[in-house]
């Protein structure tokens, strides 16, 4: 969305670069966590990059985003400064929330990113409310409301579906099905595992999408945007994806086999596969990729340095930002 690319080739390169930035950023965040520089819970987005990058490729100026606590990728894709995100992870005064939110609670009014919510499923009615605001104001904006296969079993999701369809609200419900709600697989938690059908009893259409294919995601996103902007109400996009790391940094992920993970990494990796396509199509060559990699690495290192060198918030900050 930010820095709109000029040509098709530019836009493809941007998709690749945005995914790569998230991957490298998250790897670095994992490292900083291991060093004790990031505290608490830290949920990495590695493996799922194509979902948010593809959808932001379909979004327009003014569209909103909201998600749960696995949110670093969404913020980077929205064009939020990686330095501010990383500095929030380290709890510094230069962080997006001035060190008072942490990994799970970050917001940017400017970039229309509405969090960053720590309670599973709570972002769904809020995202529906953002869509309500679009309709109330009579603009054409759409709210991308992300949640996981775990949150899809929360009651408030269905309360939201009902109102969104009843009032024809412009909201895309993106169900990021990474197959595990923390340690519980979809098979063990969901009576009906096809999440694209979860809106059926409300009359909300749903589509299953290969969430590891950024172009497929973008295309599905564009079609969903057309649906919403035409005033036809909400739509569900189930993104079939996979997270490589544990649920959070403290999760050893013993509930799945090494083989399962290895197979996804080798065969379905969104960045690897899209990179190959770009080379095959002649959009980028090996040298371009190397240069881009170095560029992304430099951004991430700079953000890590910024995040470790910035001061912690002043003690007076304890009592600020409570009331408007």
């Amino acid at each position, binding site marked *: 969305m930010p820095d709109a690319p000029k040509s098709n080739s530019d836009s493809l390169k941007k998709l690749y670069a945005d995914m790569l930035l998230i991957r490298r950023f998250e790897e670095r965040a994992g490292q900083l966590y291991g060093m004790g520089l990031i505290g608490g819970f830290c949920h990495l987005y590695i493996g799922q990059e194509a979902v948010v990058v593809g959808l932001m490729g379909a979004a327009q100026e003014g569209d909103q985003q909201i998600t749960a606590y696995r949110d670093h990728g969404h913020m980077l894709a929205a064009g939020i400064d990686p330095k501010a995100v990383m500095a929030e992870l380290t709890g510094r005064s230069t962080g997006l929330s001035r060190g008072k939110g942490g990994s799970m*609670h970050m917001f940017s009014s400017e970039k229309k990113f509405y969090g960053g919510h720590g309670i599973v499923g709570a972002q769904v009615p809020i995202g529906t409310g953002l*869509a309500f605001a679009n309709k*109330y104001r009579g603009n054409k904006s759409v709210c991308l409301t992300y949640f996981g296969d775990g949150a899809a079993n929360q009651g408030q999701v269905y309360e939201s579906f009902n109102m969104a369809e009843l009032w024809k609200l412009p909201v895309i419900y993106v169900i990021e099905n990474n197959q595990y709600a923390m340690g519980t697989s979809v098979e063990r938690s969901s009576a009906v595992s096809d999440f694209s059908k979860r809106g059926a009893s409300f009359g909300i259409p749903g589509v299953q999408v290969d969430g590891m294919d950024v172009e497929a995601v973008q295309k599905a996103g564009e079609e969903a945007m057309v649906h919403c902007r035409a005033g036809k109400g909400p739509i569900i996009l189930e993104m079939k994806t996979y997270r490589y790391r544990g649920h959070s940094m403290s999760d050893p992920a013993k509930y799945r086999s090494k083989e399962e993970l290895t197979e996804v990494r080798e065969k379905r990796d969104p960045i690897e596969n899209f990179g190959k396509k770009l080379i095959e199509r002649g959009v980028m060559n090996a040298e371009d990729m190397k240069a881009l990699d170095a560029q992304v690495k430099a951004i991430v290192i700079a953000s890590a340095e910024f995040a470790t060198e910035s001061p912690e918030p002043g003690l007076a900050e304890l009592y600020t930002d409570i009331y408007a």
Partner: protein
Amino acid sequence: MSTEILMPALSPTMEEGKLSKWLVKSGDTVKSGTILAEIETDKATMEFEAVDEGTIGEILVLEGTEGVKVNSPIATLLAEGESAGAAPKKSKKTADAPVPAGEDHKVVADKGAEKVVAPKTEVAADPEIPEGTEFVTQTVRDALRDAMAEEMRRDELVFLMGEEVAQYQGAYKISQGLLDEFGDRRVIDTPITEHGFTGLGVGAAFDGLKPIVEFMTWNFAMQAMDQIINSAAKTRYMSGGQMSCPIVFRGPNGAAARVGAQHSQDYSAWYASVPGLKVIAPYFAADAKGLLKAAIRDGSPVIFLENEIVYGRSFPVPKLDDFVLPIGKARIVRPGTDVTIVAYSITVGQALEAADRLAEEGIDAEVIDLRTLRPLDMDTVLASVKKTNRIVTIEQGWPICSIGSEICARVALEAFDYLDAPPTKVTGKDVPMPYAANLEKLALPTVDDLIAAVKAVSYKE
């Protein structure tokens, strides 16, 4: 022998009503289910059906009569073969007499919260209201509606949503007429989905709209507690001040009358403990209006706790084009020298009545109406205690971790040297609200409880 048809109680809080229209006349035969009359309660106009068959004898209360007490005879019903002149038999305590008549009438009037008589004492003028301001008498219900209507006229971003707020005109008629004036874009009936519509309201507020979310009662808001606390109250802090949630959650709080444990809880202390929320609990109509307008304009989430029994009470409201009161300021509603009584919401009425009775016994009580529970105006409370050296708080909520607990602790910490007696609280009892009329009365704080507590701290038994 004819029987009496009695004025029915058609809502839990109804004590009297208007006989709007008779649909039968003397001589008409009726049977069970025949609609006899239209009766206006404190909430709505309802049809009143016959239970027994017979012939209407005499119409005792003409249509259009207001203030007809529940259980007073409104007509006579003749059995087969009787003439209109037959002496009416006192009705039995059955079906169409939902509450007993005659000597038991006092129990009826006292059901639920203690019947509060209008205080004889002049209520002290609010220093916020300019001298010489003209007043009109208005119910709390109408004051709340006017506050919303005025703010909706003033700001296009303000809208009202909740269950039955639009077409039904409000379950307690607080939103009467708003749909007609503002249309269904801004006065929105929701499905019964508290968790969902609360979150939706929060999202709309994040985007800069100014929602008023009505809970039919605060009891139902427990379904939405996560959205109120985790999403509305904490986001400004978690976002480092970037994102605000300008939203008002409002509705009736505390005990109504005879609606049992799940519909009779005072949530004041719960919400007042949460940083990020402002909590308002007015008693007088002027405060309801001025503070609701302030709440709607406030950039932070505001919990606005009303009281069903107080909705129908009338008080003077300043006749000003734009009457807005500051949030966070208590008011001395009755100045006094001997003891400080701190009350809020419906207990302000009880405190004023207690003060009148105490005055007859030579105790001059100062009554403070907190009006706002968060931020709590301790300055006003402490200044009063430093003058009177005694304090008693009163609230309907449970005793443990109550508003009174907080005030007594703060007074003990900050005015210990001024105290001549232990800070004392009068609260609801530490039990779920019982249904039985006598037990419900026992569970709620009474004027007598308050008077006893005041005498205890005054060492006058």
